[in-house]
C-alpha cells in the first residue's frame, strides 16, 4: 500500500489508503529526553562530560553506593526552568520520586525522576507552519549508565558479557512530554528542529541526537478522518536521527492502518525502530504495563523555586525562534510561514536581515539573498548598510540578480562596498535600447528557431527561450538582466504573430 499525504484545512494531513480509499489521520506525540548542559551531574559534583574514559566521572553518589545521598544541583533547576519558561510552561512546586525497576545500568535500581508533581507543566511550542503543539510537562530526572554488550552476538541476548559505563549515570535530563498534536512525519521533524533551537538558545542543552544528548520517542496512532477519539498508540523507540523519526512514523502509521483495515486491533506496546530494515519491531512482550511503584524520594526535599527566581529567568530570556520569526516577517512584510523567514532564523541571520531592512533594504529581496546566497561562513558579519546598498542597486536595475549574487559573495569575503566591487568586475547597467539591439540581432541570426519559438507549443517555446537567453547572456557576458531579456523576447513574439 502506498500512502499519500494530503493537506486538508491547511494544517491537518491525511493518509489515503489505496486499498480502500479511506482517509486516515496520523496522530503523533513526542517524548524528548535531553541532557542538560551543566558542568556537574544532577546529584553530585562529578563532571557531566561526554566521551571520557569509562567510569572516570564517578563517585559514591552517582554509583549509588550504600549510604550515599543525593544533593540537588541548583544549576540543573535553573536550566530546567529556562527551558520550561521558553516552552511557555508554568513552573510549579515539585517533588522528586523514585521510579523502581531493575536494570544493570541503573546503579540504585531506581531512577530519581519527577512523577505526579513535575517542575514545568502546561506549555506549548509553536511550529513555523503555525501549528501549536501542547507541552504536557517538562520534568527533571537522572540519566542511567550505559551498557555495552561484548562477545557473542554483541546484542543483549547472546552476548558473552556486558560492560557498564557509569559516566552517564546521574547526568541531568529533562523529559519533555508533548501532547499528541502532531499530524505528519515532517511536522514531527520540524518539532524536533524547533525544540533543538530552543534548547540551544536557552543554553539548556547542546541537543546532539548523534551523541545521545537529545533522544526522541514517538507515540504514534491513527484514526479515521473525522474521528475525535484517539486511536491506540504505540511508542516507537531507538530513533537516532530526524530521518529515522520521519521514516518510523510513516512506517508505523502504515502498519497500523493495515491492521485496522483488516479488522485487527492495535496492541498498545513499545516498538523499536530498525533503521536497516526500515521497520518497527515489538519489544519484549509484557503481560501488562510495567509497575514502577513510584513514591516520593525521601532523600530529597520538595523543590519550590521562588517567584523572584522565576522572574529573573523570564527577564534574562533571550529572544526565542518563534518571536524572532514574527519580528522578521513583520519587518520584511512577508508571512511568518515563509521559508526564507524560517531559514533566516535557523541560520542566525535574522538580526542581519532586520538591520539591513532598517537601513533601507527591500525586505523580500533581503530575505531572498539570505535564503539562497548567504549560507556560508562570515555572512553574519556582513555590514547591513552595504547589504542594503546592494539590494537598492539591484532593484534600481544597476545590477542583475546574477551580478548581485556575485557581488554579495565578494562582499562577504572582502567586506568592501558593492558599487566598488561592481565597477571592478565591470558590471555596468546595460542600456535597454542596447540590449534590444543585441536581441534583435540574435533573432535575425536564427530565423528557424525564432519561427518555432513564435508558433510552437509551450514545451517547445520554453526550450527555445532557453536557447535565446543563453545566446544573449553569452553576447553580453552575463550583464543582461534575465527578466528584461524575457520581456523583450515576449514583446517581439507578440509583435510577430
Amino acid at each position, binding site marked *: 500500500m502506498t500512502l499519500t499525504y494530503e493537506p486538508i484545512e491547511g494544517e491537518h494531513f491525511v493518509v489515503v489508503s489505496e486499498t480502500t480509499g479511506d482517509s486516515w489521520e496520523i496522530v503523533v506525540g513526542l517524548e524528548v529526553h535531553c541532557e542538560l548542559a551543566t558542568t556537574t551531574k544532577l546529584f553530585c559534583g562529578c563532571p557531566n562530560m561526554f566521551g571520557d574514559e569509562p567510569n572516570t566521572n564517578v563517585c559514591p553518589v552517582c554509583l549509588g*553506593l550504600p549510604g550515599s545521598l543525593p544533593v540537588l544541583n541548583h544549576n540543573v533547576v535553573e536550566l530546567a526552568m529556562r527551558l520550561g519558561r521558553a516552552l511557555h510552561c508554568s513552573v510549579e512546586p515539585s517533588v522528586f520520586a523514585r521510579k523502581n525497576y531493575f536494570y544493570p545500568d541503573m546503579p540504585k535500581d531506581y531512577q530519581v525522576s519527577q512523577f505526579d508533581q513535575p517542575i514545568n507543566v502546561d506549555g506549548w511550542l509553536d511550529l513555523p507552519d503555525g501549528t501549536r503543539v501542547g507541552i504536557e510537562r517538562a520534568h527533571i530526572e537522572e540519566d542511567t549508565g550505559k551498557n555495552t554488550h561484548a562477545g557473542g552476538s554483541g546484542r543483549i541476548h547472546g552476548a558473552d558479557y556486558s560492560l557498564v559505563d557509569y559516566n552517564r549515570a546521574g547526568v541531568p535530563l529533562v523529559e519533555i512530554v508533548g501532547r499528541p498534536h502532531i499530524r505528519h512525519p515532517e511536522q514531527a521533524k520540524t518539532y524536533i528542529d524547533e525544540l533543538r533551537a530552543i534548547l540551544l538558545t536557552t543554553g539548556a542543552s547542546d541537543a546532539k541526537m548523534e551523541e545521545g544528548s537529545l533522544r526522541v520517542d514517538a507515540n504514534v496512532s491513527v484514526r479515521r478522518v473525522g474521528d475525535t477519539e484517539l486511536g491506540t498508540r504505540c511508542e516507537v523507540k531507538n530513533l537516532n536521527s530526524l530521518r529515522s523519526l520521519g521514516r518510523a512514523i510513516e512506517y508505523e502509521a502504515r502498519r497500523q492502518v493495515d491492521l485496522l483495515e483488516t479488522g485487527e486491533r492495535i496492541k498498545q506496546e513499545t516498538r523499536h525502530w530498525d533503521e536497516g530494515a526500515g521497520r518497527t519491531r515489538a519489544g519484549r512482550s509484557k503481560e501488562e504495563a510495567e509497575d514502577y511503584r513510584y513514591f516520593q524520594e525521601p*532523600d530529597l526535599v520538595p523543590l519550590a523555586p521562588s517567584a523572584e527566581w522565576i522572574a529573573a529567568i523570564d527577564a534574562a530570556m533571550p529572544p526565542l525562534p518563534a518571536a524572532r520569526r514574527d519580528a522578521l516577517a513583520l519587518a520584511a512584510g512577508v508571512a511568518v510561514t515563509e521559508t526564507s523567514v524560517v531559514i533566516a532564523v535557523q541560520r542566525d541571520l535574522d538580526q542581519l536581515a532586520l538591520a539591513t531592512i532598517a537601513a533601507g533594504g527591500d525586505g523580500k529581496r533581503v530575505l531572498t539573498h539570505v535564503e539562497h546566497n548567504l549560507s556560508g561562513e562570515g555572512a553574519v558579519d556582513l555590514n547591513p548598510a552595504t547589504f542594503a546598498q546592494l539590494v537598492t542597486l539591484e532593484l534600481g536595475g544597476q545590477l542583475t540578480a546574477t551580478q548581485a549574487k556575485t557581488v554579495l559573495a565578494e562582499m562577504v569575503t572582502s567586506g568592501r562596498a558593492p558599487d566598488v566591487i561592481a565597477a571592478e568586475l565591470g558590471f555596468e547597467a546595460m542600456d535597454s535600447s542596447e540590449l534590444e539591439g543585441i536581441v534583435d540581432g540574435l533573432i535575425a541570426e536564427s530565423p528557424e528557431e525564432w519561427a518555432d519559438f513564435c508558433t510552437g507549443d509551450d514545451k517547445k517555446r520554453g526550450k527555445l527561450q532557453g536557447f535565446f537567453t543563453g545566446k544573449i547572456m553569452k553576447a553580453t557576458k552575463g550583464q543582461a538582466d534575465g527578466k528584461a531579456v524575457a520581456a523583450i523576447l515576449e514583446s517581439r513574439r507578440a509583435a510577430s504573430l
Partner: protein
Amino acid sequence: MSAIPSTALEIAAAVRSGSLSAREVLDDHLARIDAQDGEINAFNLVMTDEARAAAAAVDARVAAGEDPGPLAGVPLALKDNLCTRGIPTTCSSRILEGWRPPYDATVVQRVNAAGAVSIGKTNLDEFAMGSSTENSAFGPTRNPRDTGRVPGGSSGGSAAAVAAGFAPISLGSDTGGSIRQPAALCGVVGVKPTYGMVSRYGLIAFASSLDQIGPFSTTVADSALLLEAIAGHDGRDSTSIDAPVPSLLESLGQGVDGLRVGLVTELMGEGIAPDVAARVRQAADALTAAGAQVGEVSVPAAAYGLSAYYLIAPAEASSNLARYDGVRYGMRVDAPTTAEMNAATRTAGFGEEVKRRIMLGTYALSAGYYDAYYGKALKVRTLIVRDFEKAYADFDLLLTPTSPTTAFKFGDKTADPLSMYLNDICTIPTNLAGHPAMSVPFGGGSDGMPVGVQLLAPALGESTMFRAAAVLEAAAPALDEVWS
C-alpha cells in the same frame, strides 16, 4: 586497669590533661572485648590496628600540646551500617560480604575529628530490620545482663557493647526504636535525635524518611557529649537541618522545675507489662518530686503508628535495598541472564526478615494497592504529627515506656513476626513524627532485667529532653532494688 574511668567525659578529660593515655584506655577496652565478646558477640569486627593508630595519634597530639577534641581517646563502637573507609561494612548481611566503602560516613568523620577512637563495628539485625539482633547473618548478640536474653535491636551490638563496658559510648541508628529499645533492654541510655539533626550521609539506608543516627552511653551526660559531637548541618544530606547544635551538656543541671510532662495514656495500658508500667509511673513521680507538673495526655493516632510504620518503612526499604543486585559490589551468584543473576544473588544474600519486608513494601507500593496501603499510611503519619502537635500545646515533654517488656529470651518471638513488631509500639510514633526521644534506664522489672522509660520532645526539643533525662537518671532505682 581499674584506674580507667567508666565514662566518656572522664576519659576525655583525663586524656586531654595528659594524666591518662589514649593507648592505656584502648588497651583496657580491647582486653575486655577479648575476654568477653566471644560470648556477647557485640562486634562484627574489632578494628584493633586502626584503633591503635588512632589512639597513638591522639596521644601524639596531646604530647605536642594540642587538644585532640572533646572525645579525646574515648573508645567508640560503630553500628555496622555506618560506612567506614576501607573497613568492611556489612549491615550484618551476607549480601554485603567483602564490601569496603571508599568513604567515611559524616558521623564517623565527626567522631574521628573529635578525637574518638573507633574500636569496632557492632552487630545488628540485618539491614536494621528487627528488635532482637536475632536477624543478624553473623549470629545473635547476647544481652550482657543475662546472656540467655536478647539485647534488643536492631542496634543490639552497640547497646551491648556499652552495657558490657567494651566502649563507654557507641553509635546506633533508629528507624522505629532501634536505639531506644535495645538501650532499654540492656540498661543503658539511648537517644534518637530530631530527624535531620544528625547527617545520614554514610548510614546505609533502611527507611530513609525515618532513619536517624544517635548515641548510646551509660550516662545521660555522655549521650549529650556524643550527640553534640555528631549533630549539625551537613551539605551532603539534603534532609539535614541547618540549625545551630543545642548546648546539651549545659542544659543537664537545669532541672525540671515548672516543666509540664504528659503521660501518654494510649501507651500505658493494654500490651504494656505491669512491671514496666509501674516503673514509668515511678519515673513520673520522680519528675513531680523534682518540680515538674505531670498529667495524662492522649495521642490517639499513636495507636495506629505500628500499622503505618510497617507499610512506610518496608516500602522505602524495598526501594533502598534494590541496589543489592550483584552487579557491582558484595555478593554475586552467577546465572545465565542478568535478571536471573539478580534474583539468585538476592535469594542467597538476604535473610528471611529482610525478604519479608521487601515483599511487604513492594506490595504496599504496587499499582492498585498504593492508595489502600502506602497512601493511607502516609495519611496516618500526618495524623500522628497533628496529634503530637496538640499534645505539645499542653506539655513540654511526654513520658512513656520504651519497650512493652524487659529483655525476652532468645527464640521467644522469632516464630511470630507480629509479636516481634509489637516491641516497637512505644518508639515508632516519634520516628513517624520526626521528633526526638530517648530511653533512660529506670530500675528493673520483676525479672530483674532493666526497664527503660522514654522521654519524647517536639522537634529540636533535645535540650528540654536532656534536662528531664538527667533528673530521671539521678532518681533511678538501682537495678537490683527489689521490685514491689
